[in-house]
């Protein structure tokens, strides 16, 4: 029992540190990459004993500044809700990662350990459910700040988030139809199957339209460019205007954590989770762990190396998807609000419904 409890705590610690580390790297990568893309130098001033680490030290300085910055409350604002809002922006993001597997199920000394905090049969619903709680962060922040603009900003952000939440849900139905399960762990295992023996059954291959719907919808949920109308850093007064110091930092941290978590969701559902193409473990191929290529070649690899490769592959996929989100952010201009609503309700919604109908038809004919 204590061992089980210890394992759970251990896994939570790994995931938590992973997300925080990812968010930390993102704060640096965002400044450096944006600088690169607009031909600037970017963060390069902060130094510890002359060591700058290409500006990484700047992120440390930012964090320190945020902790020591004065944290004020608008005088007529609602004290309690004002304090609670950032928590609601951050906490559900961390919760959602619990159902995502970050590696295969491993066996250590006869003990079976799935590298997933929560093996949940309704995993995908759980993801959406906690994603929907994040709305309260912006809604309460807008209301509690005692400011007309933050209220309108909060409303705008909420309407945007709920509109795109629908698209998220609808686009996930496609992969669920294909893999026949709501559990991300099962979906991950299923993605080591192959079409006609050689094309990996990754979500992006069997459900390309769902991927193309999910990615922008997910970016709209994170409220980042080209969907950054709720915040718009320097131009738009958004829901977080009356926040400063660590409370603002929590919104900011929640947003970066959301990028990491969304990259993980995308990797899990559409990029084969922790699977490496043609890599099988001993259990899947009668004790012959390693690469089994479709043309018959076999490259044996030790069992522990298979596990290591898979965890590594998950990490690499998450990093690539994080980079992709940054790249999109600095490439495309912002939507106008009416365009934003039109895209979700009048363009993505019919496509998503059609995708479900067609996928269902194909799944049925194959079965």
């Amino acid at each position, binding site marked *: 029992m204590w061992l089980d409890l210890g394992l759970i705590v251990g896994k939570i610690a790994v995931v938590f540190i992973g997300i925080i580390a990812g968010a930390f790297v993102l704060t640096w990568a965002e400044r450096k990459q944006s600088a690169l893309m607009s031909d600037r130098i970017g963060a390069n001033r902060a130094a510890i004993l002359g060591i700058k680490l290409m500006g990484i030290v700047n992120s440390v300085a930012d964090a320190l500044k945020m*902790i*020591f*910055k*004065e*944290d*004020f*409350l*608008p*005088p007529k604002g609602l004290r309690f809700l004002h304090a609670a809002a950032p928590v609601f922006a951050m906490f559900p993001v961390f919760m959602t990662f619990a159902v995502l597997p970050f590696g295969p199920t491993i066996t250590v000394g006869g003990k079976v350990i799935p590298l997933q905090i929560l093996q949940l049969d*309704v995993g*995908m*619903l759980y993801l*959406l459910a906690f994603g929907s709680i994040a709305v309260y962060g912006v809604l309460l922040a807008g*209301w509690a*700040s*005692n*400011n*007309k*603009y*933050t*209220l*309108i900003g909060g*409303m*705008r952000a*909420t*309407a945007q988030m*709920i*509109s795109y*939440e*629908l698209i998220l*849900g*609808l686009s996930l*139905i496609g992969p*669920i*139809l294909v893999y*026949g*399960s*709501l559990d991300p762990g099962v979906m991950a295992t299923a993605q080591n199957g192959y079409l006609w023996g050689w094309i990996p059954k990754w979500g992006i291959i069997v459900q390309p339209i769902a991927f193309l719907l999910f990615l922008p919808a997910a970016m709209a949920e994170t409220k980042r460019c080209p969907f950054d109308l709720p915040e718009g850093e320097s131009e738009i*007064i958004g829901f977080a*205007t*009356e926040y400063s*110091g*660590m409370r603002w930092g929590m919104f900011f941290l929640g947003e970066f954590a959301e990028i990491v978590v969304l990259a993980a969701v995308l990797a899990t559902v559409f990029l084969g989770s922790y699977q490496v193409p043609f890599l099988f473990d001993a259990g899947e191929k009668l004790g012959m762990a390693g690469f089994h290529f479709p043309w018959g070649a076999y490259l044996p690899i030790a069992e522990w190396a298979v596990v290591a490769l898979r965890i590594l592959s998950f990490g690499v996929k998450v990093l690539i998807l994080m980079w992709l989100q940054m790249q999109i952010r600095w490439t495309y201009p912002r939507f106008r*609000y*009416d365009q934003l*609503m*039109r895209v979700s*309700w*009048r363009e993505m*919604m019919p496509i998503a*419904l059609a995708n*479900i*109908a067609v996928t*269902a*038809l194909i*799944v*049925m004919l*194959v*079965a």
Partner: protein
Amino acid sequence: MAPNRPSAVKLSTYECGEEPIGSPWIRFNTRFYVIALIFLVFDVEVLFLFPWAVNLSRMGLFAWIDMAVFITILVVGLAYVWGRGDLDWVRPKGSERGAAAGK
């Protein structure tokens, strides 16, 4: 750990440098409410899709037709709000009190 040195100016609400007038808790445009209403209906639909998606490959054509009927009925709803212009953010002048939210 943060210091706390409030002053009247620092604490005043930021409204582009103007003095705040009136209460911020104003009535805003009903359009947001309408979007939330439509969202709720389709959220329930998405929820029903999940148990169906898990079962489809096992139950075949029958299940497909069931859900087709279910979705078609709701698509009628979508077509209705679409056709009546509830999904348009910018309406023709005169049909709405001002284009900006929160008037």
